[in-house]
């Protein structure tokens, strides 16, 4: 078999899957977004063309803009704190001769093993106003005297959801930074130590610049995924209290799958979300993901 036909043969299954599960649904979502599609239309199988109506309704829906605002805050808070924490913890587990660092390194991947929906439910228990684990710890150690309603107050609910999300997704960032740390040549540090550079200067002038690439990777990947956060919202707050934790993916989900089941509007809002994320993806591909040859 000639090489070119072999390549096609080997990629046929992937191409079929990409076409049926990715390309076609994306195109079809575009189709749905410019048609009027509710449950009744779904039953009959006839969708009336409605032009930009769905986009217009989404873009004039105050709840959509609340969801976008919450998504932006959520993304900024989680990604920002993850990058800072990932660098700090990666440096921490990279320490030699500190036995607790070895314990941390051993445990670091555990949150990755917890299903997101279970993680959400566990934190619902942690945050519970009456019976919650967190209030118990804080009360019994005397740090607080009154129970705190962590997720019930609009001002703090979004941050209360951000913490479980950071907990679950932080291992990924730590592992990438830790791997990148191994790639920094030792001689750089030895030379700097001979020159009498302080630990802080070594970090600022050697470690951080050498981590620039991996931090860009983490920034783009985590931003894209935080934009589509869903499970923790579903488990902990269901968008509440009020609309304090409505985020973009939750908006599309509720508009589509909760009565009155507006599939057209749901698709339009999901398209807007996807557009924002894809712009980031292309940036990632062009600037960050290293593919030297080919």
């Amino acid at each position, binding site marked *: 078999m000639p090489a070119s036909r072999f390549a096609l043969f080997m*990629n046929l299954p992937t191409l079929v899957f990409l076409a049926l599960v990715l390309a076609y649904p994306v195109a079809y979502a575009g189709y749905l977004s410019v048609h009027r599609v509710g449950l009744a239309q779904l039953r009959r*199988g006839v969708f009336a063309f409605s032009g930009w109506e769905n986009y217009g309704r989404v873009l004039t829906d105050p709840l959509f803009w609340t969801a976008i605002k919450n998504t932006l805050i959520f993304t900024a808070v989680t990604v920002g704190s993850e990058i800072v924490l990932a660098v700090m913890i990666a440096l*921490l587990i990279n320490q030699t001769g500190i036995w607790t660092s070895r314990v941390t390194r051993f445990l670091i991947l555990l949150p*990755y093993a917890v299903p997101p929906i279970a993680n959400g*439910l566990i*934190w619902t228990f942690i945050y519970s106003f009456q019976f919650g684990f967190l209030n118990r710890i804080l009360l019994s150690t005397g740090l607080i005297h009154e129970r705190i309603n962590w997720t019930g107050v609009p001002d703090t609910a979004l941050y209360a959801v951000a913490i479980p999300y950071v907990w679950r997704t932080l291992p990924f960032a730590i592992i990438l930074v830790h791997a990148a740390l191994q790639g920094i040549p030792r001689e750089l540090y030895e030379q700097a130590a001979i020159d009498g550079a302080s630990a802080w200067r070594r970090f600022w002038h050697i470690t951080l610049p050498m981590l620039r690439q991996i931090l860009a990777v983490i920034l783009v990947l985590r931003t894209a995924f935080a934009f589509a956060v869903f499970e923790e919202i*579903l488990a902990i707050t269901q968008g509440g209290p009020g609309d304090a934790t409505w985020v973009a993916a939750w908006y599309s989900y509720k508009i589509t799958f909760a009565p009155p089941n507006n*599939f057209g509007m749901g698709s339009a809002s999901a398209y807007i979300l996807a557009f924002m994320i894809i712009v980031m993806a292309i940036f990632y591909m062009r600037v960050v993901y290293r593919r030297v040859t080919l």
Partner: protein
Amino acid sequence: MRAKSISARMLLHAANLMVIFFILLPLAAVFIGSIQSEKALQADTRRVLPLEFTLDNFMVILSKGQQKGHIFEQITYLPDNIKNFYAACANSAIIAVSVTFLTLLFGSFSAYTISRQRYKWMLFLLQANIVARFVPAIVLMIPLYVVMRSLGQLNSLQGVIFAETGFLLPYAILILAPYFDTIPTELEEAARIDGCTRFTAFVRIVLPLATPALAACGVIVFIISWHELLIPLILNARPDFMTLPVVIASLVGDVHVFFNLMMAICLLALAPTVILVALLQKYIVEGLAAGAVKG
């Protein structure tokens, strides 16, 4: 490296303890929550560790609600989905194993050719894979629901397997491709001279050498599939086709379900992947790094 001063060591130990506390907090909560009764939980709202332990929460789940133990004696209501625990486990396992197998099979085909051959359309394929990784699941699920509904494929395991495989293939290819780059081509060339076809050279020579990468990729795909909520939540609403995450999601907001019971089912759901991660940590770390940056 210079020896660290005592105060620096203490500071590092303290920082480690804080990180360890943060990592273990939810795991402690789910464990402690699952081994006590609602009564014990409500009796003293300041107590962290319960006075008495019980396995009743697990027993009621594992006996499909038959053996109520003394906690649930008075309880008449148990969500049906909890009684479906074994079916949900089986569905989750069948889906995760099938998705892992299909993804590794087709993913290694693609990753191998992407690594070996340089055609224009393959560059495009690789780029499509990178972009595909970013497409949020919700965008795909709305049209997939409509399509599956019209095909009569809602509430089926194969529908979910198909969707998840398509969803995870791009990621698997990104994890595997850099690894195939590191396998020297001389071996396959020698096999070809000895009369192997391209395909048998790939299966007999290259794939065995790629076992570590396949392990890394396989365990990551298995974990993601075991954790996946949105795809089965939307496609499989009927109780007999629910996966574990869907069963857990169905308990959200049910005010009649005890926290303790929820924690017990969460613990049962997270146990398999926690064990996997504990055993195969090294592979997962390598796979995650390879999938994010071409190594």
